[in-house]
């Protein structure tokens, strides 16, 4: 048998959570309440019941401390944690420019049916830092 081998590699695999997401879930950086917060928000996804609460301490227009509390699926948790990491030491304006796409890139992607986790975190971010 001298048959050729088929060599094309599969491109589209349905991987659930990226390594980045798993690591965030594992470490839960910046988790918990921030008593000294200057800006907070609590956003709930009415469909799946996920809740995210973000806490920011802003000094001189810069986020100097950030925390989160999330009840929900790994996507929502990782996205919220990521937002607290991405905002630290950035100006409020810069934070408000953070998009779902940038967040998703940072997270190494999310499964299609879990994208709402990233949207929840961005919503919470905007609702906390938006000038009222």
């Amino acid at each position, binding site marked *: 048998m001298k048959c050729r081998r088929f060599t094309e590699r599969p491109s589209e695999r349905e991987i659930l959570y990226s390594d980045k997401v798993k690591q965030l879930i*594992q470490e839960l950086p910046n988790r918990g309440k921030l008593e000294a917060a200057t800006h907070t928000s609590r956003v709930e996804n009415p469909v799946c019941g996920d809740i995210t609460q973000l806490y920011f301490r802003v000094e001189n227009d810069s986020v100097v401390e950030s925390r989160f509390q999330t009840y929900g699926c790994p996507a929502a948790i990782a996205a919220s944690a990521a937002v607290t990491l991405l905002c630290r030491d950035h100006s409020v304006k810069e934070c408000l420019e953070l998009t779902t796409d940038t967040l998703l890139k940072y997270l190494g992607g999310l499964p299609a049916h879990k994208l709402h986790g990233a949207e929840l975190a961005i919503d919470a971010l905007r609702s906390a830092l938006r000038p009222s």
Partner: protein
Amino acid sequence: MQVYLDNNATTPLDPEVVEEMLKHFRDDFGNASSIHSYGQRARAAVEEARQKVAALIGAQPREIVFTSGGTEADNTALRGIATWHRKKGNHIITNTIEHPAVLRTCQQLEKEGFQVTYVPVDNQGIVRLEDLRKAIKPQTILISVMHVNNEVGTIQPVDEIARIARENKILFHTDAVQSVGKIKVDVKALRVDLLTLSGHKIHGPKGVGALYVRQGTRMNPLLYGGSHERNRRAGTENVPGIVGLGKACELAAGCLDDFQGRVRFLRDKLETEILRRIPDIVLNGNPNFRAPHVSNITFRYIEGEGLLVSLDFKGIAVSTGAACSSGSVEPSHVLTAMGRNSELASGAIRFSLSRMNIEKEVDYLLETLPGIIDRMREMSPLYRAAK
């Protein structure tokens, strides 16, 4: 350390099962319907496996129909009985905590003109016999109630339900995918008419299962084609799979004591220690009528999937709901049917053991879990609010 505690989703294969299958992957690859020696060796292996499956559940070999798994066996039982006996009546009784293979088949049969009553369960997941009795109508042709529930491990009073069915001349099917090989299952003692089992839940291969059909039971097949399986199920026999299922059943027959002893001990240790070490916990299921290898626990104020991913990071595999419904955001239909609200349902974790688990795996879980739960609760907006 790798600790696999998701044995209700699927089990690791027993190396002896793999060994027997390999023979048919490598040498005896024949089609069991062929007349030549290759075929006859395959045929002999299939019939030997049939005997082993039958022996495990107290059936006659000729009452065993091999299928591609539990799902196909459930579909065959329900649709096969329903369509054959349609002239007698069009009403089916089942309950709210069945596996989707039963529930969704029933829903489809409803679309095709059958009536289905979904009897509720109590808050420990036991079917209420009174409700079941009341649901019976003159046109009821089939009752289907699972033996052991896959999510919470509850054991249904299948023998009593079978008696009620018999008294009313109604055929009775039980999905025993999660009981066969774990607790004693004897079709003659239970007096069921049809029973579903699946290979990959008992250290056998995926893609093979069996339907017990009591001799004399008349029904339609689901798959039409060649005259395989006494015309009950067409399709070239999956010889290695069937051989693997047979071997798995043979091994399981010798391991029932192990489940009642060692596996139950491990499950109880896991459960008691979690209860002792972690506050704000709810046990799901009936502690008395429960298979020895399952524990379903709600960790309040957190959502199960995050916990699952955290445990996975530590090498521990568990499940949040029925494996097959993962990916969907709905809370488990079983816990919902047991009256758990969505917070309690989504905080549920299923630990399911097998005869391959050992004590130090449970110890590792018990060391690992409390810290993770603490960290996750620290992060939960519900937890702070509740304190």
